[in-house]
């Protein structure tokens, strides 16, 4: 189960809300920044973000992208206010970092720039290496969408939100990416 850290939901003060007036609380709620201490936020999201980036950018670059993701979050953190699902927010940043990483890499890439780590820990190392080879040739947006879907089990609507696309596009990215992987792994 994913830990969910939630700040106050964004809501306009009663005077700015349109439509039928509802029973307002006697005392106006002052919306302040109530984000948790960054170390708690980091700990709550560390595992998910790392798993995501492990497959989204590969074992050689996961550490750099992970630290880059949380540094960006740290920079913006005091300005994060109500209405933000922090667990989605950090995955949105991580998604952008993963895609930017591939774009930056593509400009000066060697085909073998990201060799698989021959890990002995897996049940079937050869099969894993083949899978890494297949994952690596996916277009970045398809790769990121596939990881959200099949590693983190996110619904399409959320993948759309995380990647800033429509739900149809999110669905298409996942399906095309998955199809390519299946073909390569046959």
């Amino acid at each position, binding site marked *: 189960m994913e830990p969910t850290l939630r700040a106050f939901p964004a809501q306009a003060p009663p005077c700015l809300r349109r439509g039928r007036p509802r029973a307002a609380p006697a005392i106006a709620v002052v919306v*302040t*920044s*109530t*984000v*948790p*201490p*960054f*170390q*708690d936020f*980091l*700990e709550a999201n*560390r*595992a998910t973000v*790392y*798993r*995501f980036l*492990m*497959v989204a950018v590969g*074992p050689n670059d*996961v*550490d750099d992208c*992970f*630290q880059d993701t*949380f*540094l960006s979050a*740290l*920079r913006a*953190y*005091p300005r994060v206010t109500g209405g933000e699902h922090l667990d989605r927010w950090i995955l949105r940043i991580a998604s952008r970092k993963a895609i930017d990483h591939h774009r930056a890499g593509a400009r000066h890439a060697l085909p073998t720039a990201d060799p698989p*780590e021959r*890990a002995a*820990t*897996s*049940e079937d190392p050869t*099969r*894993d290496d083949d*899978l*890494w080879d*297949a*994952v690596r040739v996916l277009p970045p947006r398809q790769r990121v969408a*596939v*990881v959200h*879907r*099949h*590693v983190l089990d996110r619904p399409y609507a959320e993948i759309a939100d995380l990647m800033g696309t429509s739900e149809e596009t999110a669905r298409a990215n996942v399906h095309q990416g*998955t199809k390519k*992987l*299946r073909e*390569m*792994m046959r």
Partner: protein
Amino acid sequence: MKTNDLKRLARRGGFEERSRAAAAGLPDLAAADGLLDVAVGTMSSPVGELFVAVTGRGLAAIAFEGDRYRDLVLGRIAQLISPRILPSPRATDAWRRELDEYFAAERTRFELPVDRRLIHGIASDVLKQTSKIPFGEVSTYGAIAKKIGHPSAARAVGRALGANPIPIVIPCHRVIGASGALTGYAGGLDRKVRLLELEGSVLPGSLGGA
């Protein structure tokens, strides 16, 4: 290909350890970018494990082990100072060293700066007076109340001391009841006794007595 294969890729190669190591590298990177507003750390001491929070201005908080106050204080720091809080042995090192020296009886006063941003209102006067009580001596709630110009406010003094965000360094353990009773301590009376023993304080009346 099964989708479980992808999940396995994500978890292989000591994933838990690797993610912890990557996270542990963050505080130094953050500090280099000027993004580490509050560094936190822990240390052992004769009164149990201590939690310390240090900002660019100085020591902002100390909490005792098993203290519900630790989470409370972190929440207040996040709200009143900055939520950019990360563990950093390096950035808390100087203060931990001063505290070590104090507990080793090599130091009777603290010299590094403190950050008073968690202290407000009347507590600020109370804690300022409390800071003037020298090592090895004690004062009373009534005496502090008199010094801040509210002689009948001994209870308010007690409350302010109970909410002291920087115990030990702002020595609220040196404030006792007029009868010589230790009265109370946010960190527990055992710790108050231990700190006063450490300082070799001679108490009026029997130590810890009624």
